[in-house]
């Protein structure tokens, strides 16, 4: 049976369902749903819970990984940039320490120094000597800047105060983006001069050497948020960035924010020491959200498959157990019905005994009184001429006799005589019974076919009761058949069930379906006018139960009736029927 079919059966209103629905201990549909929901809840909720935790943990891990990577990259890059600037500042300090003012004023010497700086360190554009008045008194480089006055410029004032200074990137007189590194040197006479070098595209392109992912961006801004190098996200040099300048920190920090396009970004930054620069490394958060999304998709796939498997399993197991429970419950109800029926039969039996007793006493009085009157007619011949009265008396006595027969049969029905077990040859019994009816069969030209299996085993049972059972059934068959009817009797042994099966089939009038269920009930008869008591089949039923056997019937109106008797090969005294009746 397929699973789907089994599942359908669980909820279908089949015959049993309709017959027993009011007697079931459980509402199986409701039970199934409750078990299913509870099991699903218990199984799926922890799964969802752990999936959620996994989701969050993965998210956190990936985020912190990105934060860490960004932080490392920012730190490394800051060291690289700082080193670049420090190296060049120290080179200038070295030159200023090893060259006198006069030597620096010498154009050739300054040209030589610039050439040396370019070949040794690279990146330098020009070199200039500025006196304490802010005038560039010597200059080596591609521009014509000798004699320019820097006294009003901020960087000049700063370097005078701080002795060394690195400017942010600006256009200056040359109108080319550059930064300046200026060193102040005090002379013995108390005056001072400055050595200033500028760096152009080398600094501006410095960060292009940094290996960063496709969606990453590395750039430098100054304290006012002006770009000092070009940025992928925030535009070209000298643009103002769209976000607020982060708070000062000489330690690497990582923050998350959204740009003007509402794009989620992760940014590492650090203020470079002794410079006006803030190094920034920006990454698109998609970079980390992608693997995280992939991992989430995997998680959801795993979750869905798990839930489907769990639900299928729960449906299967719930259906299995509810079906078993239902089958058990149906068996229980059937047994209850058998017990109820047996109990009913026993109660009716006791009732029959009491009724018979109550009726028999007045019947006996009527019998004796009428008998006495009859005696006076017949024996004492006192009233022998009144034939009409005599006829009436005979009718009364005949009626009493008829009632007496009924009450005696009732009493037989109520009798609880112990079963006497002996080794019984069923073939012999059925031949005896058929012998009783031989005369009637001949008279009505009824044909009797007897088919007995060869080597039919003897059974341990009660001979007298079997005779009574078979006589009842064959009598009924005779009553149902017209003249020239056919009675088919067969007996065989069912080895699997260890029972002997007797089939008695007639081709008589049959039993209508509406009566078929009632035929084993006491007092049910359709032969009232023929003097049927309605106890024959009821007695048969009770006797068979006592013998541990069973009886079933099939019938079709005008086609005939077939009774099937099953008898255990070995009668067991503690059998259900014997115990409860």
């Amino acid at each position, binding site marked *: 049976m397929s699973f789907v079919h089994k599942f359908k059966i669980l909820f279908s209103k089949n015959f049993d369902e309709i017959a027993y629905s009011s007697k079931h201990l459980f509402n199986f549909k409701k039970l199934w749903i409750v078990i299913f929901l509870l099991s699903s809840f218990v199984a799926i909720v922890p799964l969802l819970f752990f999936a959620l935790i996994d989701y969050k943990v993965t998210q956190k891990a990936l985020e912190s990984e990105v934060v860490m990577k960004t932080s490392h990259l920012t730190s490394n890059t800051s060291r690289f940039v700082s080193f670049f600037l420090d190296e060049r500042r120290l080179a200038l300090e070295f030159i200023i320490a090893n060259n006198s003012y006069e030597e620096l004023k010498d154009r050739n010497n300054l040209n030589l120094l610039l050439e040396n700086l370019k070949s040794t360190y690279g990146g330098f554009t020009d070199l200039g000597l500025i006196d304490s008045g802010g005038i560039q008194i010597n200059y080596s480089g591609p521009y014509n800047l000798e004699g320019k006055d820097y006294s009003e410029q901020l960087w000049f004032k700063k370097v005078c105060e701080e002795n060394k200074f690195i400017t942010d990137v600006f256009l200056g007189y040359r109108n080319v983006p550059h930064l300046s590194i200026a060193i102040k040197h005090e002379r013995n006479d108390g005056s001072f001069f400055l050595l200033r070098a500028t760096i152009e595209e080398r600094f501006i392109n410095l960060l292009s050497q940094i290996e960063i992912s496709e969606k990453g961006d590395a750039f430098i801004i100054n304290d006012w948020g002006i770009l000092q190098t070009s940025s992928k996200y925030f535009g070209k040099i000298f643009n103002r960035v769209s976000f607020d300048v982060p708070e000062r920190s000489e330690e690497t920090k990582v923050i998350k924010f959204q740009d003007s396009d509402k794009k989620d970004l992760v940014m590492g930054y650090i203020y470079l020491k002794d410079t006006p620069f803030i190094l920034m490394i920006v990454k698109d958060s998609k970079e980390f959200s992608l693997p995280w999304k992939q991992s989430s998709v995997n998680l959801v796939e795993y979750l869905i498959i798990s839930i489907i498997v769990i639900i299928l399993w729960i449906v299967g197991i719930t259906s299995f157990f509810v079906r078993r429970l239902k089958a058990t419950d149906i068996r229980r109800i059937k047994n209850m019905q058998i017990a109820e029926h047996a109990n009913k039969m026993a109660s009716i039996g006791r009732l029959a005994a009491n009724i018979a007793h109550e009726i028999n006493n007045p019947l006996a009085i009527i019998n*004796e009184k009428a*008998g006495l009157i009859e005696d006076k007619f017949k024996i004492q011949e006192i009233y022998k001429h009144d034939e009409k009265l005599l006829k009436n008396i005979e009718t009364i006595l005949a009626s009493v*006799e008829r009632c007496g027969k009924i009450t005696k049969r009732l009493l037989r029905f109520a009798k609880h005589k112990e079963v006497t077990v002996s080794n019984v040859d069923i073939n012999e019994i059925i031949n005896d019974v058929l012998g009783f009816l031989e005369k009637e069969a001949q008279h009505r030209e009824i044909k009797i076919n007897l088919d007995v299996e060869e080597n039919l085993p003897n059974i341990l049972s009660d001979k007298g009761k079997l005779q009574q059972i078979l006589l009842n059934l064959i009598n009924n068959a005779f009553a149902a058949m017209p003249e020239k009817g056919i009675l088919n009797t067969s007996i065989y042994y069912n080895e699997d069930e260890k029972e002997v099966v007797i089939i008695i089939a007639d081709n008589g009038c049959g039993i209508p379906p509406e009566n078929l269920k009632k035929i084993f009930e006491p007092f049910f008869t359709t032969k009232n006018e023929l003097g049927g008591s309605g106890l024959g089949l009821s007695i048969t039923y009770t006797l068979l139960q006592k013998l541990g056997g069973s009886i079933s019937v099939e019938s079709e109106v005008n086609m005939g009736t077939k009774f099937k008797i099953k008898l255990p090969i070995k009668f067991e005294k503690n059998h259900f029927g014997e115990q409860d009746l």
Partner: protein
Amino acid sequence: MRVLLIDDEEELVSTLAERLCIRGFQAEWVTDCRAALALADEIEFDIAVIDVKMPGASGFEIKKQLQNKFNKMKYIFLTGHGSEDDYETGLTEAGEKYYLIKPININELVKILQELYNE
């Protein structure tokens, strides 16, 4: 043949006695145990026909009391059939042949009386 009929149903027992008398028996009737013992003292009965179910002493108890005093007396029981126990005891006490269920056929009773008498 002298027959003692014991049954609490006076109408029944008196009529039955009369019918037996018509058939040539010397039949007497009583409706309880005491009367039965008293009458048995006066007349030597061959057979007692006793109803099993009677108020006071049951048919079987009456039989025991009669048996103690009159060892030659034989017994037939009548019953309207009450309980299962009565039936079983009746069969044990009297045997199926001498245990009759009411209403009885007078000819059958006569036949049994004669058989028992001749045993």
